[in-house]
């Protein structure tokens, strides 16, 4: 009897795709339950996040590298946040453009002799400035060392017990800090909380604030909106009730400074320093048996500009995949430890199987099925079954992302916008998703070949800076 390996391989790929999408659907159901409970709770607290008068002070850390077009607007938007007590620390990580000059001119910076507590290591600091216009704004000018290194310098300079890492190309909704701090007030075990990141391309930004959310004319940006909705609203929300969130976006996350210092701050030898830190926090608390909570909140919104050209987008996705691979491989012990808990026994295997090696299996799957069909090895029926299931489930999952958005926040209020997003949810499965898989595989190759990491330079439109 001959072993029909081709048949089994076909079946294997189809089963993998079914399992992948089935797990995502399950996560989607969990997210829906979690979101419903969150929305109810928010309705209980009230639409407007309340000041209790006991909110702990927060240091907003903003690493910047070649951000001269947007830094003015971003810093100004940070300074206008609704929060009782906070400071903004901008860390200029050896920018080669006029970032520092723009900051000095815009905020009337003057040198300030300030000793930095060397709790976590980073590249040498060249100067520290304080603003003569805003008492709570400081700028640290340091030698280039990457985003993680800049954040470490910020942690050393931070004066408050909680710090919020924010990308310099992002703008926060005014009450974001007030909302993201709620888990720290509600549960003393909270060590980190992350918020949702949304795409601001096509939206109206004025004076550092997003006035009206809209859709961009660029199709690549529109695809990414659907992708972000899916990634945040069920990719992360579903894990939060299980205390198994492994990713808090570097664009917006609030951390307990002492706990971050206890784990050694951000690692500078990885591109996915945000995820790496969260996984390390999980490991640290589990190994030492310290009760902790890491939360993801769906509504403290941070708006960011996404790439609108294939080159930049491809580089960004490769970098993300490399970061994911680095974090997961470095902390494989979390999964095999007796104290791994839900992050180790559930989230880590899920991420490994579907996010880390997923693109590779997907690529091989596409290649095998299409190549096999061309060579006559794979039947028409199997190819059609594979494509119908893969694409059909992909569309359903993206549309579910839209449902979660409508159920909860309705950032895109217009009917026309939702219909356009529906169209994007369908179309992204014909080309864009496959391209993404290719980029992610490139990221895996870069991780495998140990390519040197660097700041992810992104081409900016600079539209915010002009607003």
């Amino acid at each position, binding site marked *: 009897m001959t072993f029909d390996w081709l048949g089994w391989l076909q079946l294997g790929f189809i089963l993998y795709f079914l399992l992948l999408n089935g797990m995502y659907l399950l996560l989607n159901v969990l997210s829906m339950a979690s979101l419903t409970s969150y929305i109810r709770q928010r309705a209980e607290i009230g639409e407007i996040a309340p000041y209790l008068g*006991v909110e702990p002070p927060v240091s907003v850390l903003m690493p910047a590298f070649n951000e001269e077009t947007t830094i003015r607007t971003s810093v100004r938007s940070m300074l206008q946040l609704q929060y009782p007590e906070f400071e903004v620390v901008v860390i200029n990580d050896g920018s080669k453009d006029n970032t520092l000059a723009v900051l000095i001119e815009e905020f009337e910076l003057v040198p300030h002799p300030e*000793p930095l507590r060397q709790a976590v290591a980073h590249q040498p600091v060249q100067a520290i400035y304080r603003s003569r216009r805003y008492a709570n704004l400081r700028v640290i000018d340091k030698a280039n060392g990457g985003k993680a290194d800049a954040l470490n310098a910020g942690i050393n300079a931070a004066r408050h017990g909680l710090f919020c890492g924010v990308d310099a190309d992002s703008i926060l909704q005014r009450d974001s800090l007030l909302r993201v701090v709620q888990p720290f*007030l509600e549960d003393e075990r909270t060590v980190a909380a992350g918020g949702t990141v949304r795409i601001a391309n096509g939206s109206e930004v004025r004076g550092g604030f997003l006035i009206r959310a809209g859709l961009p004319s660029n199709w690549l940006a529109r695809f990414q909106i659907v992708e972000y909705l899916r990634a945040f609203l069920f990719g992360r929300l579903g894990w939060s009730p299980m205390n198994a969130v492994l990713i808090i976006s570097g664009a917006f996350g609030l951390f307990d400074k002492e706990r971050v210092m206890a784990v050694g701050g951000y690692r500078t030898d990885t591109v996915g320093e945000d995820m790496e830190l969260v996984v390390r926090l999980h490991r640290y608390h589990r190994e030492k048996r310290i009760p902790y909570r890491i939360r993801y909140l769906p509504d403290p919104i941070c708006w960011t500009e996404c790439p609108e050209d294939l080159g930049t987008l491809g580089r960004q996705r490769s970098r993300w995949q490399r970061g994911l691979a680095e974090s997961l491989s470095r902390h494989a012990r979390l999964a095999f430890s007796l104290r791994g808990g839900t992050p180790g026994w559930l989230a880590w295997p899920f991420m490994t199987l579907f996010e880390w090696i997923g693109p590779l299996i997907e690529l091989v799957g596409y290649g095998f099925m299409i190549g096999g069909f061309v060579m006559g090895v794979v039947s*028409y029926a199997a190819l059609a*079954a594979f494509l119908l299931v893969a694409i059909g489930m992909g569309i*359903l999952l993206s549309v579910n992302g839209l449902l979660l958005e409508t159920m909860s926040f309705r950032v895109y209020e217009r009917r026309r916008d939702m219909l356009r997003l529906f169209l994007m949810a369908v179309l992204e499965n014909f080309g864009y998703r496959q391209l993404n898989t290719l980029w992610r595989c490139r990221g895996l190759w870069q991780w495998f070949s140990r390519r040197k990491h660097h700041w992810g330079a992104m081409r900016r439109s600079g539209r915010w800076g002009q607003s």
Partner: protein
Amino acid sequence: MLSERLPACPAWLCETSRQAWLSIWPEDAMLQLALYCALGLGALTLLVMLQVMLLGELARRRASRRQQFNEQWRPFFALCSLGDELPAPAPTLPRGQQLWFLLQWNRTQLQLRGAARERMNRALVALGMDQHALVLLRGRVRSKLIGLTCLRHLADPAYWNDVQPLLVNRNVTVSLASAQTLIAMDATRAMQLILPAAVSRPDWALPRLASLCQQAGEQAVTLPLLIALSGSEDPRRERLVPLLVHGDPRHAAPWARARLAEDAAPEQLQVALRCLCELGDPRDRGRLLRALQHSHADVRLAALQALHKQARSDDSALFMPLLGDPSWWVRQAAADSLATLPGATPEGLQMLFRQVQDRYGQDALRRAMAEVKR
């Protein structure tokens, strides 16, 4: 029969479409299954999208009705807050919109102060809506919270018995909201209930309790808190120790001095030192100086801050050695104390700076001097 009476389907229409369907429908069983799956997924996707559009439409309509309601009632509320009499004629309030009324009323109350709030309260009672707020207390969580918020604004002890049972509600948000409402009615009486209950409610987060203590005021907090701390053997009571900083330092001082005398846990010592810091009694100086030698850096920091509050111009000798403390925070606090000593001058500070041997101490003092100049 009806089918016989109906005209037969023309062959060019029925037969052709049947032939076309048969030609595309696969014979392969696997492909048939895949097609069924795809059709199912497609139908499900369309249903989900339909739901998206439906929910969006419903939300839009609700928002528009709510907008209309608010536009109708906002001027009425404005008039209520201005005059002692209920403005006439009052808009009609359908039963289904009573909840919206209370929500809008609660929101308006947040924006008002003093007499305007009192007038709004009177208007609410005159319209009989306080009774609706009481009805809401028997509803679900959201209704309970709206009712409690309304009664908090009214702050009338007449409703005490309606609110008090909710203090032991299993839902954290409801129990804390009822605590807040009881405090608004009678802070002293409320804290006598809340603080003993807090010992056995670990789900009441400390920052929320601190917020309640702030709202109640130190007179209402001190005595029940001291009783809760000393009158119970429950080890969970220790959690409440940090709340003492919201109490009256004069009454908390004996407790604080006792903790310092028995060399309690560092967390308790910090609270004790913060109480003495608030009190600022020079007779505690000896205790503070002893705490300055404690091995725990946070205790030294708290002692230093307490000493700073009662520092004299000749106390520089006290703070100078602390510039070489192993703790970064203590060095910074010592530098701040030196830079802000009564009568400190730039020249005097420069002289002190030259005397500092420790490099890190110099850094700290340089920073503090720059901050003072600012």
